[in-house]
């Protein structure tokens, strides 16, 4: 290993530190309402989010996000497995799933508000409706595409259908499922924020919007920074968990250095985080409608 651990750390920190420094320097004497000094934003960040609004806004947001995401993941995997195992159902359902997943989920918000009401439920439902598709479609794809010889092996040893699903088919499909879950993660975050910008009384999205409406620019910046931080932590957490669970997959593709004793996060996490942010279109099926709506 030529590059040392410390060297890599410096390389990781150079750009963030430089950007923050630049921001600090250019905003220090700023009198503009739209470009407050970074010190004011940091003060506001401390004031609002350490820890006054953690209980009132951050935790409710995270609760909706977690509930919506988990329901979407479980539903997507369960339904995707059923559909993926039945070739006819898969073909018959394709036009419908293609149509439904093409609807930009934020567009469903008015509809969900009318049908489900104003409470937490409508926000969770919106998150589920948006983030279930990448999981579902990737699970169908993964389950359908399990190697035929692997299945032959399972059948030749008399492995029953249920064990086949849990021990052979789902693990074989898990790399694809993980891709879907990774895409769903950012969709769920986006929808969490969007759902809180309409008919809401708390949450990160609500806070950012109300700060903006009361011309509290520093508060708006602070809220955006918090959302960004939440997204980063959630993504890195996911990648660390995925790296641990799917270690065999990288190993089988020859991507592990040797046979590391203590696997997990660390090496490669940042490069994989980047890859997750810009997923290759072919196999990730990103939710174009969603990202477009937010930009």
């Amino acid at each position, binding site marked *: 290993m030529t590059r040392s651990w410390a060297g890599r750390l410096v390389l990781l920190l150079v750009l963030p530190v430089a950007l923050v420094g630049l921001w600090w320097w250019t905003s220090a004497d700023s009198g503009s309402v739209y470009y407050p000094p970074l010190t004011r934003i940091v003060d506001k960040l401390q004031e609002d989010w350490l820890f006054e609004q953690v209980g009132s806004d951050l935790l409710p947001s995270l609760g909706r996000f977690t509930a919506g995401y988990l329901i979407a993941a479980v539903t997507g995997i369960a339904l995707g497995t059923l559909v993926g195992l039945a070739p006819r159902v898969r073909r018959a359902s394709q036009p419908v799933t293609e149509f439904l997943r093409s609807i930009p989920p934020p567009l469903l918000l008015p509809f969900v508000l009318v049908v489900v009401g104003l409470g937490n439920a409508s926000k969770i439902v919106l998150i589920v409706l948006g983030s279930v598709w990448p999981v579902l479609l990737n699970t169908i794809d993964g389950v359908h595409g399990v*190697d035929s*010889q*692997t299945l*032959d*092996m399972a*059948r*030749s*040893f*008399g*492995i*029953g259908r249920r*064990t086949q699903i849990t*021990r*052979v088919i789902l*693990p*074989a499909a*898990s790399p694809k499922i993980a891709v879907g879950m990774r895409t769903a993660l950012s969709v769920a975050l986006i929808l969490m924020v969007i759902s809180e910008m309409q008919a809401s009384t708390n949450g990160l999205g609500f806070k950012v919007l109300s700060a903006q409406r009361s011309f509290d620019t520093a508060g708006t910046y602070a809220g955006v920074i918090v959302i960004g931080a939440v997204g980063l932590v959630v993504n890195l957490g996911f990648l660390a968990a995925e790296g641990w669970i799917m270690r*065999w*997959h990288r*190993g*089988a593709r*020859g991507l592990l250095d040797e*046979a590391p004793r203590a696997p997990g996060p660390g090496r490669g996490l940042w490069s994989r985080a980047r890859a997750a942010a810009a997923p290759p279109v072919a196999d990730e099926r990103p939710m174009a409608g969603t990202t477009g709506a937010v930009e």
Partner: protein
Amino acid sequence: MLEIEGVSKTYGSGDDAFTAIAEVTLTTRPGEVLCIVGPSGCGKTTLLRCASGLMPPTAGAVRLDEHPVTAPPRTMALVFQDYSRSLLPWMSIHDNVVLPLKAARVARDERERLASEALASVGLDPLGRKYPWQLSGGMQQRAAIARALAYQPEILLLDEPFASVDAQTRADLEDLLLEVWSRTGLTVLLVTHDIDEAVYLGSRIVVLSASPTRVKETIHVDLPRPRDQIGTKELPEFAHLRASVFASIKEESLRRPVDT
């Protein structure tokens, strides 16, 4: 005793129909190594899939000890050519070997005993904790053989099991198979495209014709056992058998363009 009687397999129907096997009849004798060779593309794998109950034949019947084979029988185990697709990369070698035993509801103690015996018999006992992708190709195929042995079959079917490894490893695996076979008294049905391998391992060799496939001839291999890579292959009888199998196959591959 595995009886393959008048088995044919046609894929598709109408104008697109392709007859992979026209009519194959053969019977294994208990405790023999029966090698099946034939020109490439003659449907060896199709035949093995029909014989193992993974695929129903279009016509004819497969019977194992008088019982019709409609699904893979409990007393039969398969070793596939491509170990990387037949070993599960998300499980350790040990768990790969144990999985079929779990499915067959073998009690835990018994399962562990069978697994460690099988792993020991292929020389992998210290590597059970490893994952398939941490092992070389030859070792992975050893693991696949261990999985088949732990399943305690009476008949072992192998589909070009040594085709994906280098020559030296192939020789080692051939000897491993002979050693296991002579110790257990298994019946072995081995599909291969390697004539040397068929002569070296086999008790009998079935030569298949080019597509549409039939049994062209059956050759008895009366080379003395135990066999070894150097001594056996030096025997004039070995050279003679090798030449006659080769001639038989060559005749078929020359005939092939006329058919297709």
